[in-house]
């Protein structure tokens, strides 16, 4: 069955529509484990709509970088979505070497957010910015290595290797990279045990503190971008860990969506069952994930053949 170009529009549109839902699922899962009813599943949507309808107050310290930084975050996140392949639907744009663009767009979104934070001159935001960049400097090699390992096993230097339709990933590789990327999901989306999105202490936050001085539509757009990022990473993890494909592209999409819900629930379970890690332990966790990615790459390389 050939895939038509408009098939790729499906997941693209779906991402814009459904991204905040994943956050809702995580929150619901956490509520379930603490025995509460919890906020409604659509609460993230309400929050975003509420923020968009408000207006903003800008710090007198800020410069044009503040506003353009927010635009850059949005543009880069959207760029990631354009490159992201979903099962048989494929991606809107795909070319040899798009994984480098993908990794770099990820980095530039992060960098822009950090500049937004630094522009306010707040000490808390400086602290958060420093941590964000520190962890991402360690996370970047893991993302690159994992994606390259997938590319190598699929013999195609493109993100479309992630969905494994050209050549299904060997089981061991899938597991190792899935584990490594799951750690990355936690790091990149600022979840427990790396960061606590619900804390109310500025000193302990990473992502939340970066957007401390954003308000109104800016805040809403950034929250939306963050949820899209979570969507993107759960798509990747879900596809790495689901080795089977349905015959039709809609079925394939359904499998991936199911996998994503599973990823979100798992995040919820991890958040309910773990405390935030000590700051010094996070590099160890990341290096551990890096070791997994390297072993996966060795495995693909045929070192264990």
């Amino acid at each position, binding site marked *: 069955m050939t895939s038509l170009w408009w098939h790729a529009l499906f997941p693209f549109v779906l991402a814009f529509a459904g991204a905040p839902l994943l956050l809702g699922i995580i929150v619901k899962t956490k509520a379930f484990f603490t025995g509460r009813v919890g906020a409604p599943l659509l609460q993230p949507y309400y929050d975003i709509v509420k923020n968009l309808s408000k*207006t*903003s*107050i*800008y*710090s*007198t*310290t800020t*410069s*044009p*970088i503040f*506003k353009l930084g927010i*635009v*850059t975050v*949005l*543009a880069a996140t*959207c760029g990631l979505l354009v490159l992201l392949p979903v099962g048989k639907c494929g991606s809107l*744009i795909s*070319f*040899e*070497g798009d994984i480098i*663009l993908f*990794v*770099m767009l990820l*980095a*530039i979104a992060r*960098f822009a957010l*950090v*500049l937004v934070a*630094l*522009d*306010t*001159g*707040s*000490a*808390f*935001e*400086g*602290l958060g*910015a*420093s941590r964000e*960049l*520190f962890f*991402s*400097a360690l996370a*970047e*090699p893991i993302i*690159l*290595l994992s994606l*390259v390992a997938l*590319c190598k096993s699929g013999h195609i*230097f493109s993100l479309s290797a992630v969905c494994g339709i050209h050549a299904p990933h060997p089981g061991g590789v899938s597991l190792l990279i899935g584990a490594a990327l799951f750690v990355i999901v936690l790091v990149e989306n600022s979840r427990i045990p790396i960061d606590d999105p619900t804390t109310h202490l500025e000193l302990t936050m990473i992502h939340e503190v970066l957007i401390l001085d954003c308000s*109104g*539509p800016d805040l809403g*757009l950034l929250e939306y971008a963050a949820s899209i990022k979570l969507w993107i990473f759960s798509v990747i993890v879900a596809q790495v860990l689901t080795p089977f494909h349905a015959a039709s592209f809609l079925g394939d999409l359904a499998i991936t969506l199911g996998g994503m819900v599973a990823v979100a629930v798992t995040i919820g379970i991890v958040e309910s069952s773990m405390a935030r890690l000590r*700051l010094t332990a996070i*590099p160890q966790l990341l290096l551990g994930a890096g070791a997994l990615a*390297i072993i996966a790459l*060795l495995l693909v*390389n045929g*070192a264990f053949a």
Partner: protein
Amino acid sequence: MNIVVVLLFSCGIFIVPSACALFFRATPKIAKNVGPVSTILGSILGIVVVVVALCNPALPRTFSIATALPLLDMCFNLDNLSIWFLLPLFWLSGSCTIYGMGYCNQLSSKRSVFHWLLWNGLVVSMVGILIAAHALVFLLAWELMAITSGLLIFAHHENQKTRFGAWVYLLSTHVSAIFVLILIVSLGNDAHSFFFSDMVGSPEKSSLLFMCALIGFGVKAGFFPFHVWIPKTYPAAPTHVTALMSGITIKMGLFGLLRFIPLCGVLPEWFGFALLCIGAVSTLYGILSASGQTNILKILAFSSVENIGIITLGLGLGYIGQWYGNVALATLGYCAALIHIVNHSCIKSLLFLAGGTIVSLYKTSNIEEMGGLFKRCGPLGWLFCCGALAIIGFPPLNGFISESILIFATYTGLFAHPDSVSLSSTLLLCIIAIASGVAALSFARAFGCIFLGEPRSAQCSQVKTVSLPLQSGMIVLALGCCLLVAIAPFSIGLLLRVVQDTMLWEMSPELVATKNSLQTFVTALSLGCAGFGVLFLAFFFVRKNAYRNKVTGQGLTWDCGYGTPTQRMQYTATSFSKEIILLGRHLLFLQVKKTPVSGHFPTQSSWHQKIPESLFSRVYTPLVKNSARMLSKLKWIQDGRMHMYILYIALTLVALFIWSFA
């Protein structure tokens, strides 16, 4: 029309008017401006000549002037490799000169005339290095480059730090010259000719040749064990001199490597791996050091070490590919190196010009005392931001293209045989990714501390704007950074020809296949950059739409309920990079002096960190001091009496007679 003649004529435009300016004492205003104007004209002519040469490959490209001196034929050849380096050279010399015109307003007329003469001499010497077809011409130009750039650094010789920096530079550049001399003499001796076209290294000498090339050109390029002069010299020199040196002068070392690698014959297998090791260590060490510095010029200097490391990684991959007959890997490796050379020269000059401007605005180079410059001096902020984004390797700027090609080369290396290549590629991938992450950190830190937030000291709240010539010099370079992304897809053909000519490869189907895949790769990346720009514009309007009919307010930054926040309470540059520095403390030999927080009511606590330049203070300084002490015992030879000198000459003559007749 011989293209080389026109090129030499443009060299004449550089030199002759600025030399004549020495005699225009009466009209200082004209004399002052003759030099820079001739540089700009010469650069424009140079670019035109090179472009014409590119469009008409049929034009004769060799030229020689017979001289009366034995062995020394002034022979020039404009090959593709020279063209590849000449373009950034002329571009940089032009734009740095525009900047320098603003700078030289403060100098006295006499000084400024000398300055421009030396400056033009430096540019011409580099042209000479690039188009030399004869090893002795190369050597002559090499020495001229060393002397002119050394003297240029001495510009503010009243300052002790400047003198020290210049001495370190002169010393290292002469160490480099000695090894280049040995290399050239040894090659020339074997070939009985000093024409590059005749030279072929003998296999039994390959280790010697390899060491000489590595040290001689490595000191100039400034990769890891030989980088020590870079952080000492760059902050000492005038801004536009640093920009030109960091942009293109140090690339002459890499040019030398590229020129001589094929001439040295079959180098040992481990040469490629040695390059990889050197590149890896330079990359990591350079960027980690950069993230720990608080002097903006040193941040940029160490970032140069990192980028030279990245280029060396490309060369190493290329050489390994060549050794194992893996055409794809070899081509991609060399291409990554070559493209990054051009990109980095543009970016780093821009950054150094911006950095120098910042230092002159603030009267300090310590970023801990800066802040809030963006609101006061927006254009400078945009220019620095452009340079920072480009050097980290972010789309849509040129650093992204070269970094991507390097990653592509590494990916190709993963498939290569033997396993040692694929394993080192794995490691390389980690190193490149980490380096790019840390580069993001250190440039976010630099940009944030200098431009964002509030001024950290009273002095920097009264910063003036930047004058037009200073700005326009930087704008030309920033345009170059954008332009290089757009023309990258069209330069692949030239790039491949450069690699092919330099490495003396035959055209093969594999090479064509590699070229095609590289072509689509780079085109896609460029289009991707454009796409990102489009998305940026789209979201710009989306955001604007979200604010339609809304009145925004202004307030203070959220201060967490604390009533009287001060500017001193902003996060500092040292704290910003503390974690990453602590993670890399073993590589940096970090020294920390701290008074930790203790007790329930902690009083004073402090944290002082220092990244010692251990290699400089522990290895090179004792080496130089001890050899100076030992060599001073030979001082009796120079005893000041003419008779003795005549005696030496006579003795030398006799010795030569005996040697030649024995």
